[in-house]
């Protein structure tokens, strides 16, 4: 039939677009790593295997990621149980504060830690004074520093996944366990945890992949300690492109292996599945001393978690060159914020990040809607591959994608589908788009799946054509999913550092790079002011997303 064939053709077209954006650059990287001046070669693989620094960097990536999973789980799971199962004064607001590290994009979080625990950070200086030490009590460097940042920013995954898992538990299952004589511990061990496994597996996978791809923390705090992402960038800066390709391949293989090992776990399905039965009610903590203890622990924790945000805010008011060795800055000014608006050189990156994030978000949402219509609604034959490709960039660290795109789009060969985009305005939105496709399409495809297909059919029997149905029925009903997908994409793109550092040009330099350069010029106030802006925008977008997502 003709309309059917047209739909299938559109499916193939989408598939081709995704293959060109996602698979093709990766294949080119693979090819370049195995090609020397005289054709195919394993020289670079040999070089990679011979250098102990390479093995050390790869191992560094792996063990840092594993340790990050353990630390994040150790913090996130107990917190989720505390806030998900018990009721005590301040639970609501604390439960919300606990998720706050999510609004700190990686680089911003890292500089906040620098201001707090770095050599001349508040906490370090405070301790130095109190203990009358000669120097800072610690050096915020190496694996320990990286793990600290990772634990802080990634426990949120375990926290959110576990809470969602707890919320989706059916009370009657717990009651059944109790009626069968299982005590609290046995219920926890034999019923609750097994039911949480998919959620915990998802959180572990997400944490592992995020820390494997983590770049900001190792870049700023690594010092002599190398992980593969920083190794790739430095190899690339040294001009050893082919070796960088092999490093890229090795990191991708580790990522894919992790994905394969945890392939059964549920990832980002939170909120998509409906809840059956009644969620367990929270246990009200009755005893006075227990309430008090929980309150103190809770608020102490909140302060600890909020310190980076507060620090950033405080430092953003510090005038240039006034803060040296005092524990607290001696002077404050609005100047830094005014500069961001008034100085065209400072305002540029702000504007850049805004339009780059907007363009890439709009494109990602558009592609995700097309994929939703073709794959979920029209069920084109290529739907399996389309959905697979949409998820693929998630398994590939950002550094790898940056290299891949830089490789693919630095050559002009229109017949081979290659154009010179590196150095133009378009490479960054493209990179953000590719990186955001998994997260955006996840949310939007889940939205499509939750839509009752008979709504479309009802619209058709009422004489509404495809466009009217899309505009009046499908899109309005998808609004929560669209807003969720778009806000995640926007926030990620707005704070991006990993891909930007490899692909930016002076004209398109985003906020993250301006933060870095302000920091290098010791202009901490401006760096922090940028950080506060990113943090505020992220928080605002998330708040709008949460608001829209729950309504309608």
């Amino acid at each position, binding site marked *: 039939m003709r309309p059917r064939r047209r739909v299938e053709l559109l499916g193939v077209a989408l598939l081709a677009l995704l293959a060109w954006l996602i698979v093709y650059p990766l294949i080119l990287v693979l090819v370049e790593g195995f090609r020397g001046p005289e054709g195919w070669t394993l020289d670079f693989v040999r070089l990679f295997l011979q250098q102990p620094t390479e093995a050390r960097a790869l191992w560094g990536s792996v063990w840092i990621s594993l340790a990050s999973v353990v630390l994040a789980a150790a913090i996130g799971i107990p917190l989720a149980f505390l806030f998900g199962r018990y009721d005590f004064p301040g639970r609501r607001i604390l439960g919300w504060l606990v998720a706050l590290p999510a609004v700190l994009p990686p680089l911003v979080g890292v500089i906040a830690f620098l201001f707090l625990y770095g050599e001349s950070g508040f906490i370090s200086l405070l301790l130095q004074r109190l203990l009358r030490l000669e120097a800072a009590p610690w050096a915020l460097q190496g694996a320990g520093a990286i793990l600290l940042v990772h634990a802080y920013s990634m426990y949120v995954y375990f926290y959110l996944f576990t809470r969602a898992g707890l919320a989706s538990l059916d009370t009657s299952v717990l009651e059944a366990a109790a009626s069968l004589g299982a005590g609290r511990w046995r219920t926890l061990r034999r019923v609750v945890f097994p039911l949480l496994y998919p959620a915990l597996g998802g959180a572990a996978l997400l944490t592992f992949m995020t820390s494997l791809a983590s770049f900001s923390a190792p870049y700023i705090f690594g010092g002599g300690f190398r992980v593969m992402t920083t190794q790739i960038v430095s190899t690339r800066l040294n001009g050893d492109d082919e070796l960088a390709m092999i490093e890229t391949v090795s990191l991708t293989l580790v990522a894919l292996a992790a994905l394969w090992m945890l392939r059964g776990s549920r990832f980002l399905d939170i909120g998509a599945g409906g809840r059956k039965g009644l969620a367990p009610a929270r246990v009200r903590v009755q005893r006075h001393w227990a309430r008090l203890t929980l309150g103190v622990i809770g608020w102490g924790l909140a302060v600890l978690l909020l310190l980076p945000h507060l620090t950033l805010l405080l430092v953003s008011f510090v005038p240039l060159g006034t803060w040296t060795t005092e524990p607290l800055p001696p002077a404050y000014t609005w100047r830094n914020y005014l500069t961001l608006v008034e100085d065209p050189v400072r305002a540029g990156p702000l504007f850049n990040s805004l339009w780059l994030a907007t363009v890439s978000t709009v494109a990602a949402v558009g592609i995700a809607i097309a994929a939703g219509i073709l794959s979920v609604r029209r069920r084109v034959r290529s739907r399996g591959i389309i959905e697979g490709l949409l998820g693929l960039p998630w398994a590939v660290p950002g550094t790898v994608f940056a290299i891949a795109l830089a490789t693919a789009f630095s050559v002009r060969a229109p017949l081979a589908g290659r154009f010179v985009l590196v150095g133009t305005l378009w490479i960054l939105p493209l990179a953000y788009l590719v990186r955001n496709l998994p997260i955006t399409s996840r949310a939007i495809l889940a939205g499509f799946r939750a839509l009752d297909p008979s709504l479309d059919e*009802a619209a*058709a*029997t009422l004489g*509404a054509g495809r466009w009217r149905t899309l505009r009046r029925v499908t899109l309005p009903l998808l609004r929560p999913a669209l807003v969720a997908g778009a806000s995640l994409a926007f926030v990620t793109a707005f704070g991006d550092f990993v891909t930007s550092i490899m692909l930016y040009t002076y004209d398109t330099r985003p906020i993250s790079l301006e933060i870095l350069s302000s920091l290098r010029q010791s202009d901490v106030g401006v760096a922090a002011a940028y950080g506060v802006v990113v943090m505020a925008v992220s928080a605002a977008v998330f708040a709008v997303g949460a608001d829209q997502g729950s309504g309608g």
Partner: protein
Amino acid sequence: MTFLRLDSLTKRFDSTVAVDHLSLSIERGEMLALLGPSGSGKTTTLRLLAGFEVPDQGQVLVEGENVTRVDPVARRFGMVFQHYALFPHLDVGENVAFGLESLGVSGEELERRVARALTLVDLAGFERRRISHLSGGQQQRVALARALAPEPRVLLLDEPLSNLDPSLRERTRREIRELIRRVGITTVLVTHEQDEAFDLGDRVAVLRGGRLEQVGTPEDLYAAPANEFVAEFVGRSSTIGVLVLGRTDRGVRVAVEGVEWNLTDTADSPPGPARMVVRPEALRLMDPTPGALIGTVTERRFTGAASLFTVLTEGGAALEVTGPPRSVMAGEQVGIMPSRRAGGGIHLFSRTVP
């Protein structure tokens, strides 16, 4: 004159035939019920009518116009979906207006016609209510109003009552029937509930495995089922194997588990093994005397004026028999005979294919 005609419709999904050479003619203003168990192809037939599926073979004709390949958007068939498929983000009035807007109706005319459609289903003044604030029965009426507002040529109803509380069903059934009679629209509805089909359908088409088994008025189907399947599927009945001995001047002689019965008013059946389908009211209970089929009462269900007894015969068949409420108790041994006014309640279907 035939208004809607299904001509040898056939639809395959992969290797299974969902609808198999189905032909039906529906008069203008008639209500036809498609009745069948799940998998009988009734829903696929409805979807073929609506245009969501395109048949592999055959045609759908409305007043002689071939609409087989007309898009649902252009077909102007109204449909009420099983779960109503009301647009949750639009209010009642906007839902009802949706189809009218497709026709280009706007302004006061639109408001007037929405109000008229809502009045028709007894929901006048409900325009600005949210869908989520309506009861199940109200939602169903909104769905009806929405389907009827653009004045479609044919109305399709997919299991219209399955989503309602049992207590609401009978009343809603009555309301739907009245409403559709009033509007006078040609209607096809799908159901697996015989009561629904008999109550709503002027005629009922019984489907099995994608084929039409029989089509006729409820009375026809009940009194003269075309085959064993229809006899069993329509109305309450039980089945037992018999041997047809031959025809006498007083009817047909059959042997039931060694007992010989004379059946009057039964269509001709060739001698040999046969299946006898019996309505509960066509049998009566008596003392276990010679000439009666002997069995044990296993269950008694009180249904009001009479009780329904399940009797397990010595030969292992379970027969349902109506009788006075307290005549026998479970566990008692009883005899069964055809009641004197068995009428059209006993049907013989030869086992040998003629």
